């Protein structure tokens, strides 16, 4: 049986481990050179790889995952630096690109562990050099030993806001402000549910407490106004505080992020149906607790199948691999499957509380000024999308997201709507006066990321 696993982050590693333990040798593809996913991405060899320094509280978990990753590579058809840009569920084929060379990988069953990226809300000035996602700020520090600037502000909501600010401050960066768009009251309401998270919740409290103890400026319930800049850099960040007063800080870099969104393009191209998850406020591919989908032979695990975080991804990867094996007629350890199911269910309850404590600020996206850049790739502004919601728009009113894309080019650029899609949906829905889940989602189209045009072999040209 030919099994393929796409992705070598926490979900992919545990999935492969489970498959290898059952005697399989899956094809294992990852876009990065060394696996680990984004959360446990290792620095290049020339840098210090001390786990305690890089991963803090997560050092043991990271080390264990890396050890398994490295142990599994020779026991699989390991294909690093390999990007899957299309999937054909009918003939069960992955179309891949490895250092400029096209290849296909055929499978009988595939497990997609494609991870996530930051979910952002545009802010006037957000395309200035010096503004990055929260994840980017963390990657710069973790894998390159660099801060995104010298005086750094962080703006957003959710666990990553506090973690990255803490990591920066610990590394000696000048963290000039940590601005949470969620109010203290919203977080306090969710606190009871968060207690289920145990250690995870405690770590979050620790970071916030540490930042406060070190006198770092923290403001909660803020409304971003603008990132200011001159030439090719950031000069400051303006916001209104919870009482509506104008605030400002001088800075040369800003990290922004409001949680994560699944990188689910392959699931989409595989024809797996999506649903709007109101708690996460994301469109997610439909799957059962074990990672089975309605498309035979196609399984999902990790953040690409709905945001759960790294610990959940490890559980889900192992569980989806068991589901795959079971569906293939293998005898699997039922007790282990049941244990994973219980752990996943419990983690799901904590996730709900976490999402409630840091909800996606849809109102911020919907309320953006018309002249704010929305689609970075195409240089389109918020007003250009909003205009397409009006009856008098030259091509008629765009009643849903893909039509708005067709009319305005929003989400049509190099990133294919990854970055602006979530905010664009809020803007369009608000302009149409309908709930965001009523306007659909940007359809995935191959290639999942850009592929280069190459010269054909000489004999192939007529």
């Amino acid at each position, binding site marked *: 049986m030919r099994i393929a696993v796409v992705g070598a982050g926490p979900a992919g590693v545990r999935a492969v481990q489970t498959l290898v333990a059952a005697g399989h040798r899956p094809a294992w593809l990852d876009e990065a050179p060394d696996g680990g996913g984004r959360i446990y991405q290792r620095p290049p060899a020339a840098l210090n790889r001390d786990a305690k320094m890089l991963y803090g509280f997560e050092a043991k978990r990271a080390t264990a995952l890396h050890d398994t990753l490295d142990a599994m590579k020779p026991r699989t058809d390991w294909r690093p630096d390999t990007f899957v*840009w*299309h999937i*054909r569920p*009918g003939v069960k084929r992955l*179309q891949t690109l490895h250092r400029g060379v*096209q290849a296909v990988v055929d499978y009988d069953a595939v497990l997609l562990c494609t991870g996530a990226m930051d979910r952002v809300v545009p802010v006037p000035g957000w395309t200035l050099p010096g503004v990055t996602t929260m994840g980017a700020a963390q990657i710069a520090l973790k894998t390159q030993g660099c801060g995104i600037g010298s005086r750094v502000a962080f703006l957003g909501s959710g666990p990553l806001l506090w973690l990255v600010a803490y990591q920066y401050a610990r590394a000696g960066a000048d963290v000039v402000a940590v601005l949470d768009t969620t109010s203290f009251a919203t977080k306090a309401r969710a606190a009871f549910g968060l207690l289920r998270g145990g250690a995870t919740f405690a770590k979050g409290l620790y970071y916030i407490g540490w930042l406060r103890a070190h006198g770092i400026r923290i403001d909660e319930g803020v409304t971003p106004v603008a990132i200011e800049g001159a030439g090719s850099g950031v000069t400051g960040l303006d916001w209104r505080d919870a009482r509506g007063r104008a605030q400002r800080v001088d800075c040369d870099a800003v990290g922004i992020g409001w949680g994560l969104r699944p990188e689910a393009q392959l699931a989409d191209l595989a024809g797996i149906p999506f649903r709007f998850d109101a708690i996460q406020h994301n469109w997610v591919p439909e799957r059962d607790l074990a990672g089975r989908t309605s498309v035979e032979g196609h399984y999902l695990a990790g953040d690409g199948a709905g945001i759960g975080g790294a610990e959940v991804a490890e559980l889900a990867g192992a569980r989806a691999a068991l589901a795959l094996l079971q569906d293939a007629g293998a005898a699997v350890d039922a007790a282990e499957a049941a244990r994973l199911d219980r752990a996943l269910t419990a983690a799901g309850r904590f996730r709900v509380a976490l999402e409630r404590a840091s909800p996606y600020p849809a109102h911020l996206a919907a309320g953006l000024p018309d002249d704010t850049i929305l689609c970075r790739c195409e240089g389109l502004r918020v007003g250009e999308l909003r205009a397409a919601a009006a009856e008098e*728009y*030259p*091509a*008629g009113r765009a*009643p*849903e997201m893909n*039509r708005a894309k*067709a*009319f305005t080019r929003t989400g*049509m*650029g*190099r990133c*294919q709507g990854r970055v602006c899609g979530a905010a664009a949906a809020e803007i369009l829905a608000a302009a149409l006066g309908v709930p965001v889940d009523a306007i659909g989602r940007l359809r995935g*189209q*191959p*290639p999942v990321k*850009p*592929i*280069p*045009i*190459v*010269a*054909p072999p000489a004999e*192939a*040209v*007529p």
Partner: protein
Amino acid sequence: MTTSCDVLIVGGGGAGCSAALHMAQRGQRVILLERGLVGSQASGVNYGGVRQQGRNPAELPIARRSHALWMRMPELVGSDVEFSVTGHLKLARNDAEEAELIAYLDTAREHGLALRMVGRNSIHRDYPWLGPKVVAGSFAPEDGSANPRLLSSSLARVARLAGAEIREHTKVTGFAHDGRLFRLTAEDGTEFSAPVLLNMAGYWGGAVAAAFGEAVPIKPLSPNMAVTEPVPFFIEPNLGVVGGNVYLRQIPRGNIIIGGGHGESDVSGGRAWARPLPEVTLEMLGLAVALVPSLVGVQVIRSWTGIDGQMPDRIPVIGPSGTMPGLFHAFGFSGHGFQLGPGVGAIMTELVLDGHTDVPLAPFRIGRWRDAA
């Protein structure tokens, strides 16, 4: 409850929406029924070529008529739908292809289509970015391109303003005629009736015709398309080749749209789908590089296809039904209906309301396969 009107149109592509507009402008009560959103299939996701050069001679009179409407597009729909007269340069890659270009010059002349050869001596001087495999070209200065995503919906908007009713997400599942009126039933049970029915349903036009006893040999067609990231503008004309296995154009924003070959589709189920095929995309990119070598290294950011209807002789069915008075067909545009759409809507309106049109339609009659048999 049955909604009655003067003219029912099935299919909201460029041709159907244009027919709705022209009919409404002449005071007809029109209802257009579209299974999805207008312009969702062949009309909305095609390459965007607005080309007369190289067409089957039978199509040229319609293309000429449509060209006149394209030139008036801002007046017609209130925007230019990004229509731009860039010229269309059709390229030859060997002697035989060059001979074919030369042979077509006479056809063009007969129909008043401006066309000139760009010979071996001037092709690389005039277009220095063309690769060495190109030996000659013929240039049609009146041709160009437009944004297919805007045409049908722009026509539909002004058709509505003119009084037409455009019903989207209305899939017709029942076709009948009670001896006086056509009676159409939508999937949700809604009924529509009219003395005149225009079948402009693209690939699905075959099923409409079959419902009235005149089945035709139509097949789904899914042209494979891709677009690159924006790069500095340098390809002014819309480019094609003899044989048509690759075509490309660049828009002023910088993106290069490349087509060639066919994707896959499934029209058997309730939810038809079409997808580009990766190997076809890669092959057409290779063919494109042979025309324009500097495309190497440019990134492709998206690929797509849609569903059109293809007839065996690669020209559409246009004209009155052979079995049912009041029924008129215009479907099966075989991958080149985008330019024709606006004109076809005008022609169908004349055909229905005036009983005749100046454009010769005999080559497109639905009975042609029966005649041949």
